């Protein structure tokens, strides 16, 4: 009997032991077919092995090498059998548009990509005028998924209308925010989707060259993207696009461990081979970006959402969502979380539904004390704010931001003064040094929090004043948004700051 197994090769699955499971399968069933895929995004089940039974993929997890013999002997009776993978509630309740193929196919198999709906968007794009393509993106309501939420179509239009001998598409894959891993998961699981999105962006704006700026902390994603670029050139997804005569090619560039390079102007400097310092805006990168030329700088998820918009139409995408937040958002459930992973759904779910119902609360089983939404520069939220719907404006109104849609959960043992101090310390370590509020402010912020810890009564006022200066005076979001976690921690959990004051007195 010929058997087909699917096992993720995603970094999270490997970190939980997937390679040892793969070796055990090869040893126990040398004739079986083993396809390494991306991850379904249910990290608590990793390594999540899938076995095709009567055309349906059945899941087993978390699998250890010692389970293989038992699974081979009696798959459906095995204690780790989960039934059909797509029926698992965490998966079934999602709306997978951007991540439709992630976890399903072998990431760099061009034939599988085409068989699962890949290239449909590009084919349609090639039949449209550039202006109509930009209108399509505008109609989809797609906004920058990196965190800023700027309408993608408007950015593309600025580049399209700019006159230049060379334009560029730059993909920001410098996903440095803790609590976020959607970019990594997409690049490791379905890299052709990102490439197709970049190619479509190239046609729409008149750019013929693209770069993916990928952080060095993601070696697996770098390897997969490099392999995918080579396969895409062979398959007509790069170069002469599907034989249309339209040209687009791209390179993968690796960062060098600077968090600030996730900021678009600093990223462009880094890509040019300079120190990753922030540039003042204007000029906008859309007019003077990489090498001074008009450049689209979009996040991985923004670009990877483009193929589904073109394949199924802007309306189908815009049907999802809430208010001015249209389409789907891949929410990443991280930190002290029971059911951690990636959950793609239309905007509008409440924070509480995501944290309590989908994520199942904490891994430790203790009460949720706080969640940080949007990475290290995002605000903390306490349970009394859990009715906030997931959307750009809604989170802004609640004093936070959705950022890259990572939710990091903390149980009641979290020390919020310590977390506030870490936010300042991180800003000090990672500041590019160009503007004073960030470079000096972060260092002073650490000092003020240390003084609060030791009971200094005036430190809080100085800290709040400092945060105002950083917020209003910094050139980019690093210095400008570090006050979000600091002040939200202070306002929501004054006891964590006050208790220490009393203890010291």
């Amino acid at each position: 009997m010929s058997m087909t197994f699917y096992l993720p090769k995603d970094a999270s699955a490997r970190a939980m032991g997937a390679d040892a499971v793969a070796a055990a399968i090869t040893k126990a069933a040398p004739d079986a077919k083993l396809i390494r895929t991306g991850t379904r995004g249910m990290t608590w089940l990793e390594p999540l092995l899938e076995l095709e039974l009567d055309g349906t993929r059945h899941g087993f997890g978390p699998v250890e090498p010692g389970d293989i013999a038992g699974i081979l002997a009696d798959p459906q009776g095995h204690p780790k059998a989960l039934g059909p993978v797509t029926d698992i509630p965490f998966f079934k309740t999602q709306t997978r548009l951007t991540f439709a193929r992630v976890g399903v196919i072998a990431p760099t198999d061009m034939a599988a990509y085409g068989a699962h709906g890949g290239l449909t968007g590009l084919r349609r794009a090639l039949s449209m005028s550039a202006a109509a393509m930009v209108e399509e993106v505008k109609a989809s309501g797609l906004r920058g998924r990196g965190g800023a939420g700027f309408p993608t179509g408007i950015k593309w239009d600025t580049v399209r209308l700019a006159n230049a001998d060379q334009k560029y598409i730059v993909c920001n894959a410098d996903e440095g925010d803790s609590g976020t891993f959607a970019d990594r998961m997409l690049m490791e699981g379905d890299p052709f989707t990102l490439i197709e999105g970049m190619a479509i962006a190239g046609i729409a704006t008149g750019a013929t060259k693209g770069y993916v700026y990928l952080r060095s902390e993601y070696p697996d994603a770098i390897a997969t993207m490099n392999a995918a670029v080579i396969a895409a050139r062979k398959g007509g997804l790069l170069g002469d696009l599907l034989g249309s005569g339209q040209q687009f090619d791209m390179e993968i560039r690796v960062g060098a461990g600077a968090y600030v390079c996730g900021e678009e102007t600093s990223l462009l400097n880094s890509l040019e081979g300079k120190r990753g310092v922030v540039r003042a805006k204007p000029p906008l990168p859309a007019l003077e970006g990489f090498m001074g030329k008009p450049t689209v700088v979009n996040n991985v998820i923004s670009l990877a959402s483009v193929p589904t918009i073109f394949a199924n139409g802007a309306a189908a995408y815009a049907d999802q969502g809430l208010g001015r937040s249209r389409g789907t958002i891949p929410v990443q459930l991280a930190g002290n979380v029971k059911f951690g992973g990636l959950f793609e759904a239309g905007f509008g779910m409440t924070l509480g539904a995501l944290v309590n119902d989908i994520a199942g609360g904490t891994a430790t089983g203790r009460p949720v004390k706080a969640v940080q939404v949007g990475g290290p520069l995002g605000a903390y939220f306490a349970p009394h704010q859990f009715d906030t719907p997931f959307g750009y404006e809604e989170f802004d109104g609640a004093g936070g931001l959705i950022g890259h849609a990572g939710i990091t959960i903390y149980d009641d043992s979290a020390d919020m003064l310590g977390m506030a101090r870490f936010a300042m310390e991180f800003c000090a370590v990672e500041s590019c040094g160009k503007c004073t509020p960030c470079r000096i402010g972060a260092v002073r912020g650490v000092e003020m929090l240390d003084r609060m810890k030791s009971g200094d009564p005036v430190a809080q006022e100085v800290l709040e004043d400092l945060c105002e200066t950083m917020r209003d005076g910094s050139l980019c979001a690093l210095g400008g948004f570090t006050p979000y976690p600091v002040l939200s921690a202070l306002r929501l959990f004054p006891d964590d700051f006050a208790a220490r004051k009393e203890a010291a007195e």
Partner: protein
Amino acid sequence: MPDASQTDRIAAILTAHDGLEGPLLPILHAVQEEFGLIPDDAVPQIAEHLNIGRAEVHGVVTFYHDFRDAPAGRHVVKICRAEACKAMGGDAVAAAALAKLGTEWHGTTANGKVTVEPVYCLGLCSCAPAAMVDDRLIGRVDAGKLDAALTEASA
């Protein structure tokens, strides 16, 4: 003075990157891959080839955390210090590892075997805390898993 072999090897790297737009980071990654660090005397050679100032190259080398001016130990352990890992007790895992190895962040053990570095996010935030021993990723890391990975790496 750089030895002739080093000069030749760097020259080969430089030539291989001719024609790239913004080639400096790829060049520095390749140099570090070759030598395990960025040799001081590589800086003027790179600057001359790219027709930019030595200060510019030096500035870039020192700006980025990845580039080393001293060789790492035979194995590099990276332990995540960022928020999602903190939420799962990452600080305690890191403290125990540093104490056991008898070194500080960025330090190398006395026998030159292990360098320990902080990393701010490996993207393994849903199986935190996370660490990396050379190329091997570890999720839900604890002292036992870290020890096992180090033992395996040394074997």
